[in-house]
């Protein structure tokens, strides 16, 4: 019995497996045995070799966009606690302000025109 994933043209399911292996390899998550199996497959599969080259190009582009074109791995975005707290406070403040303004404008019964508009007036003719 032959594992279809290891065949040269192992079908779409086989390609998907190898594409995931390529992704994991570039992330440095494969064992030596798996890397050897992947290298062996890439020799025989032009499609997967092309996909690996594309993946690498994407990572290079991401590294350049992050300002570090010579990085060994794609830099992950870092969120600092202070920045996160600032944005949380800003969002809460904006929400409170918007809620207060909406309440002033439409909130509670009796809204609409000003009180003076609804009051009686006397005009001498």
């Amino acid at each position, binding site marked *: 019995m032959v594992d279809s994933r290891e065949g040269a043209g192992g079908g779409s399911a086989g390609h998907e497996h190898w594409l995931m292996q390529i992704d994991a390899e570039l992330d440095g998550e494969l064992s030596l045995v798996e890397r050897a199996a992947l290298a062996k497959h890439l020799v025989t599969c032009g499609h997967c070799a092309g996909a690996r080259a594309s993946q690498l190009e994407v990572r290079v582009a991401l590294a350049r966009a992050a300002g570090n074109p010579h990085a060994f791995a794609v830099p992950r975005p870092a969120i600092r606690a202070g920045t996160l707290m600032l944005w949380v406070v800003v969002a809460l403040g904006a929400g409170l302000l918007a809620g207060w303004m909406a309440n002033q404008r439409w909130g509670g*019964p*009796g809204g609409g025109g000003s009180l003076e508009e609804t009051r*009686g*007036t*006397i*005009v*001498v*003719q």
Partner: protein
Amino acid sequence: MAPSLFSSIILTLATLQSPGTRLTYRVRVLEHAAVAPRLLASGAVSGAVDTDMRLTLRTDTTEVEAVFQVTPTGDTVNLGAEFFTRRQVGRSRRGLPLWEEDTYRRVVRLGWSDTARIYPFGAPPPPSASSRGNGKDVRGMWVELILERLFTGGEGRPAEEFSLVDTTRVFRLETVVRPRRARVVLNLVRGDTVSAPRGFDLVPDEPARIVQLVLGGRATTLVVALARPDPPRNERERALALDAEVVCLRVSPPDASEPLGQVCGRLNNVARQLPLPTGDTLAATFAWPGPR
């Protein structure tokens, strides 16, 4: 400046004190219609110069009550109006109506026989909107008020006349008169026995008077004085002068020690009772005094 002010005060006092001046509030309630304003109600309230007029207009969602009073100043008159308005502003979560209440005062000066237009539900809508009014917009409704004075031989009783043309609306016109004096009839009651009635014309805030009532051969002496009621406890009663014709009778023993109590009531011939320490009950009836 000073002489004109002085003459104005003199004229005011002269107008107020002249016994033969009769004041009439002539009222018409109108609303916008396609061709000409439509008359909804009309009426008049007249009486002495200190007579006030209470006007009530009510729709499904708004109630306007106002008390109008005048202060003559020579050839002109200051018209003051104390408004009490209730507007339905929605419903509670349990489906009950929610109302907001508003009290305010308006004062204008006008000449005798001038016409004052009162827009009780707020400023009139713009002409373009009013011209296509459907007749149900309450802001298209107004009250025309004309103040008239007539010099008469004697002071007549207050009078009201009112004609409701559109019976689907609720309007009311009432005279508000603060009694200058009141007819008080006193009885002493013990079980089924009642003393002979004693009647007096009393003036509010005048010195007390000593009264002797005889019941079953025993005489009871009391000191009675007529007074105005305490200030109203809520805003509506104050604004609309709902207690205008209420008087209070203060009853004390002749030795002027602790007062025995106070009986308050309208001038409507209803007997009001005050238990006395002797076991008897004092029944006081208030009524308008007879003409002089």
